């Protein structure tokens, strides 16, 4: 348990640091503390990234990577925005669609034995193409009731869903499936040798990533009140960044989805910090990149230190 705590701690530390920095910059700029409006809008705009980051972290834990999250979010956004206003039942279809897209990745990676980066790069294009087919022009809508339940702009209903996601992960990691994910990420050959059905586990992991992307898409449409076939693209890099900032090891087997959640929130806060610190817009992406590098370096240094201690 202690070991686990130490592994994920980097993500939480970065989150704590960014939160402090946000409060300092905000209050020094506006002369007051952030209001409920600020917290709510941070919560609601972060939720989609939180879900994609959870899915991405599962895949990275097995030693893989999922570039197709961008395409899966896009296609699910397109379907959500075009259909849900006719019947809320379509939400189920969207979640099933996301899971199916993810399962397709899983099949190719686990049974086709094709490298995850190649597989998901290819399916990224396929899913993005599908999204454009479903929704050639941005638009669509979502019923007000769905919006009030998912990302209410006046009360923090988003907290419920964030809480459910966290609880879901805590339960999942204690199941046999959860342990197998870590086992495969740590050493796939040994895991197979002791009878872990690696292919089946990987298939489920990619399918879960698809489900997470679908959830993200639903929350995306709910916050923005409409859809766009290119909506998913930014999530590819930001989800990977969240996972990295969250202290999940790229080689797999170490880290936690909660770290990725912390990373996702931290990344959102960085945008706000840069905003209120009044940095010249031309340098904003420079500082965003710097933040990433610093966070990743901290993670690497922590990992190296841990290894050295273990060897000593």
């Amino acid at each position: 348990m202690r070991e686990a705590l130490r592994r994920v701690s980097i993500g939480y530390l970065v989150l704590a640091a960014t939160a402090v920095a946000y409060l300092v910059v905000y209050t020094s700029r506006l002369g007051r503390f952030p209001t409920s409006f600020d917290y709510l809008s941070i919560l609601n705009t972060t939720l989609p990234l939180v879900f994609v980051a959870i899915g991405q972290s599962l895949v990275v834990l097995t030693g893989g990577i999922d570039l197709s999250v961008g395409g899966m979010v896009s296609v699910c956004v397109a379907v959500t925005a075009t259909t849900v206003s006719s019947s809320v039942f379509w939400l189920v279809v969207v979640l099933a669609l996301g899971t199916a897209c993810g399962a397709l990745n899983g099949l190719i990676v686990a049974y086709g034995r094709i490298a995850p980066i190649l597989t998901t790069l290819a399916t990224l294009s396929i899913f993005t193409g599908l999204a454009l087919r479903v929704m050639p022009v941005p638009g669509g809508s979502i019923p007000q009731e769905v919006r009030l339940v998912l990302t209410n702009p006046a009360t923090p209903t988003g907290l419920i869903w964030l809480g459910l996601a966290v609880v879901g992960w805590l339960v999942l990691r204690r199941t046999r499936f959860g342990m197998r994910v870590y086992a495969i990420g740590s050493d796939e050959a040994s895991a197979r040798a002791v009878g872990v059905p690696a292919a089946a586990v990987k298939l489920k992991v990619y399918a879960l990533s698809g489900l997470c992307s679908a959830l993200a898409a639903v929350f995306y449409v709910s916050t923005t009140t409409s859809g766009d076939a290119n909506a998913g693209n930014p999530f590819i890099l930001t989800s990977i960044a969240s996972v990295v900032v969250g202290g999940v090891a790229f080689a797999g087997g170490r880290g936690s989805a909660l770290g990725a959640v912390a990373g996702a929130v931290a990344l959102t806060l960085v945008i706000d910090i840069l905003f209120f610190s009044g940095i010249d817009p031309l340098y904003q992406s420079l500082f965003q990149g710097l933040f990433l590098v610093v966070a990743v370096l901290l993670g690497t240094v922590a990992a190296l230190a841990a290894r050295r201690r273990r060897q000593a």
Partner: protein
Amino acid sequence: MNLPRSLGRAAIAATLLLAIGACGDAATPAASGKKAGKIKIALSNSFIGNQWRVEMENVYKAACAMPPYVDQVECSVFNAGNDVSTQSRQISNLISQGVDAIVINAASTSGLNGVVQQACDRGIVVVSFDNIVDNKCGLTVNTDQIKFGQQLAQFIVDELNGQGNVIMVTGVAGTGADNDRNKGAKDVFAANPGIKVVSTYTGMWDSATAQRATSAQLPNLPEIHGVWVSGGTDGVIKAFVAAKRPMPVVGGEAENGFRKFMAGLLTPKVNGMSIGQPPFLSVISLELARAVVKGEHPKESITIPFPVATSDNMVPGETVFPDLPDSFFADFTDSGPNATVILCQEAATDGTPCPGKTLDVNLGTP
């Protein structure tokens, strides 16, 4: 457990971030020089990754530094790197900051609806331009993109007397402007049975991409008589030159390189029509926002006419700029007696105010 080390790391991280914040503060004395009575107008731009966006921001900054804006308006500029959630965060923060108006070039026409509604609910004037925001509570300043497609296509049809092979080089799929432009063009070509569209491919609104794509397509194409380009026109022409193909009639955007070909400054001289989405849309939006906040203009969206240029009216310094690069958009200023706004070259290249000039923006008759 290594708590001390963790704490140390946390401290380092926090200091670094605070340091970043502190540097930023020091770097923007303009933003802190608040004066009573000035209205606050912020520009929220989605991304700054191409020449058009740079010019758009430059003329906005230049306008802010010129009268009457320099005395009336406190301007700020934010870029979101084409990420909807970043832009939506920035707009939320602008709401918290209590600005009077937000001028937006959106990362997604639909993606900002939620946050724009929140701004409207708080009485903030929202004006979007170019890539506009769907939400009807905001005002828009734009050109008619369907007309863009139609007008260029009609020019090609007229020049070819309704007979010939045409290629269409489109823009970034999934955007409203691309869709509208293509629709306008296709309608016109479809209405003229003598015109055959032999190939349609994307140039991504980028000269280099358009040139690559065209070079790849040309060997498989018959003789081309007309080219319709949504963006990256100079690239398409260069691909024809490189392939030693006869130069077709070209209807395209307002790249300075294209205009140089049209003016005969580059060979061969191209017979063409050049219509641009003008970068000064940002300045018009600034004026509309200012006028609405001050109560001088009704809360109404406006559509401005495209600045159009043909090979016959190429005037150096007005419609074509021999000393500016090919990728520059030559329509950073309007021209003629009914011009919407006249800006100088340094406003577009460096964002510096035009010397000794009061900016007069013509919003048209409401």
